[in-house]
């Protein structure tokens, strides 16, 4: 089945090219039978195919940050190359930046040097879309893309960061790449990629009140495990997905990579178009109308065949937490950690190592467990709706004394909106403060590191050993569970 499909694609992809902006001819209309949304976007971006090799794919939008790009710019310099299409790359400093006093020189000299190199590269290569520290459009790369209208349905999008999958919420093929590939995109606006297989994950029903899209995603990852979608590009579908807001959809797509998927996407609909309309880099006037007509065609054909289909029931999902050192090691907040006999033999060494690191025991329940830190932020849960949810829960309550809380907006725009809505006042009254935007403790490259041995309930995406600081113990959760932990000082069911 799959083989045939591949062959079909190989034969047709080069014969007809379609515009990534405003074309309106679907693969189905080209007489190739039913296609998935992924197939349609992919096929429209094939520049060439190498026999028994990868496909040369055109990239519409490239996002770039200071940590995974310096070696790529060095590569260009060594080869004597220019950036091929500078206006198609958006640059923001986020990974390695302080979340306090961004107007002052960065204290850590190594971080400072990396940020300076980033600015120097932007200047030397004439990059027009460069948003350094403090710029009104600065923020976490996957937050500022959609926020400013860089992210549009039907696009191919890459970035030297695995959570590029976030942009899939708009019906794009968006995925993370390595630095060699960053160099390729800078030099040619193309990369070489093998075509992934397609998977559709359908969520029937609706998530219950008090359950967030983060819980839905953590549920899915624990079902699939961290390698369960490796080799696949996932389309999310079903009533529960349709009913999510754009920001909630971004959270789901963001976490696609945590089950190994190349990326995840959701067909655009009215929710998408309403979110996009009027954003700075969106098409305007007639162009908007023309684009809209095209975007409306972006969905999988009714009889499209996926390489794999999974169906879940969203009604079943409870607020969730993780207990181990990968995002697949998760459970409902009132459930117990698996016992050893529930783990297959090959996995036991890793399972034990993981629980040792976390200081947990097989079979233990974590409800009521005392914790030390709460982190709200990251490209997973650092948007305005996350801050609204968190604040709403906190309102009229107080931060627990044993908790150190870092609330880090995903961008300056998010922070501004927090202030405009007065959320900062409510949070301050409850004993919290809002920091300045960046990746912060999501990967702890800056000063925001959770100390060794301490427990953090974190709205981020990875609970890997040391991810949030050497020896830090991360419990992943949604913003509501984080809020409940922040006011109770322990893991608590977030009932209002």
């Amino acid at each position, binding site marked *: 089945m799959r083989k045939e499909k591949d062959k079909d694609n*190989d034969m047709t992809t080069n014969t007809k090219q379609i515009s990534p902006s405003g074309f309106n001819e679907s693969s189905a209309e080209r007489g190739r039978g039913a296609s998935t949304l992924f197939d349609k976007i992919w096929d429209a971006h094939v520049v060439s195919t190498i026999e028994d090799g990868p496909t040369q794919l055109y990239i519409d939008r490239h996002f770039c940050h200071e940590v995974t790009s310096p070696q790529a710019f060095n590569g260009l310099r060594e*080869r004597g190359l220019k950036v091929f299409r500078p206006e198609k790359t958006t640059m923001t400093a986020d990974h390695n930046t302080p979340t306090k006093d961004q107007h002052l020189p960065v204290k850590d000299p190594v971080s400072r040097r990396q940020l300076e190199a980033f600015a120097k590269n932007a200047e030397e290569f004439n990059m027009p879309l460069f948003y350094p520290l403090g710029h009104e459009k600065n923020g976490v790369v996957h937050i500022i893309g959609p926020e400013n209208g860089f992210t549009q349905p039907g696009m191919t999008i890459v970035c030297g960061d695995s959570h590029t999958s976030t942009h899939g919420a708009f019906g794009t093929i968006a995925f993370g790449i390595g630095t060699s590939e960053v160099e390729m995109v800078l030099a040619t606006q193309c990369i070489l990629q093998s075509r992934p297989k397609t998977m559709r994950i359908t969520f029937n029903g609706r998530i219950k009140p008090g359950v967030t899209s983060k819980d839905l995603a953590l549920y899915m990852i624990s079902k699939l495990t961290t390698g369960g979608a490796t080799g696949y590009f996932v389309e999310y579908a079903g009533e529960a997905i349709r009913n999510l807001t754009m920001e909630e959809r971004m959270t789901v797509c963001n976490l696609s990579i945590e089950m190994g998927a190349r990326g995840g996407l959701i067909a655009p609909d009215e929710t998408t178009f309403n979110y996009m309309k009027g954003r700075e880099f969106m098409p305007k006037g007639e162009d908007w109308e023309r684009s809209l007509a095209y975007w409306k065609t972006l969905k999988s054909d009714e009889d499209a065949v996926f390489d794999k289909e999974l169906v879940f029931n969203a009604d079943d999902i409870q607020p969730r937490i993780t207990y181990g050192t*990968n995002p697949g090691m998760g459970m409902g907040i009132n459930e117990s950690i698996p016992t050893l006999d529930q783990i297959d033999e090959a996995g036991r060494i890793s399972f034990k190592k993981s629980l040792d690191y976390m200081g947990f025991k097989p079979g233990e329940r974590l409800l009521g467990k005392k914790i030390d830190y709460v982190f709200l932020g990251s490209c997973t849960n650092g948007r305005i709706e996350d801050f609204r949810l968190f604040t709403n829960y906190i309102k009229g309550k107080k931060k627990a004394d044993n908790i150190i809380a870092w609330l880090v907006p995903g961008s300056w725009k998010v922070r501004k909106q927090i202030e405009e809505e007065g959320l900062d006042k409510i949070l301050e009254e409850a004993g919290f403060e809002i920091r300045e935007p960046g990746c912060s403790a999501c990967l702890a490259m800056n000063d925001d590191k959770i100390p060794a041995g301490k427990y953090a309930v974190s709205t981020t995406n990875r609970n*890997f*050993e040391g991810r949030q600081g050497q020896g830090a113990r991360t419990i992943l959760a949604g913003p509501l569970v984080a809020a409940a932990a922040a006011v109770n000082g322990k893991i608590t069911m977030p009932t209002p």
Partner: protein
Amino acid sequence: MQTSNNTNNSYLSSQTPPSGGWGAGSLISSVVPLPIENVDTDQIIPARFLKATDKKGFGDNLFADWRFNKDGSPKTEFVLNDPNYTGEILVAGKNFGSGSSREHAAWAIAGYGFKVVVSSFFADIFRNNALNNGVLPVVVSPEFLAEIFESVNKDSKTTLKVDLKSQTIINNATGKSESIEINSYKKDCLLNGFDDIDYLLSKKELIEEWEKKASTAH
């Protein structure tokens, strides 16, 4: 316009194979066993080492938090600190290289001196990053992997032969072998020290043509 069928790989002819790369086409080496599953790139190279702006020196911090105590002294129980286990082949549990897309992970592995990583399963991005740095990810069956761990357990001097040309991996302790899956394009790249950017640069005209068509298609 048909642009595939680059099987003759004429674009390779001007390239000189890198010294010490896959030019020889095969490799026999003892192995470093790491029977842990889901080894993520944050373990391979922790984020605090990502501040460099060049590709050098990452090998020194490969598996830093498993390998060194806080004071920088080696953790003797970790396999990289055990003189019994050396070689150019790292053998790891399933789902190796999951997590972050940081190519620094591949630079760390290559920088330390590994040319091959063997596992029963690799994360996608890591796999690409490894290949782009001359490190060959070899996928073997779970049984073959378990057997390597067993052989090495019995005799730490056990060697594997990884033959890229014939696409086979042999456990020299048992004589058993499996085939190595790799597409012919990537194989050529490794054997000839050619990279994707060279290929893409040779396609500039095609890219411009594509852009033109894209902008006039409606």
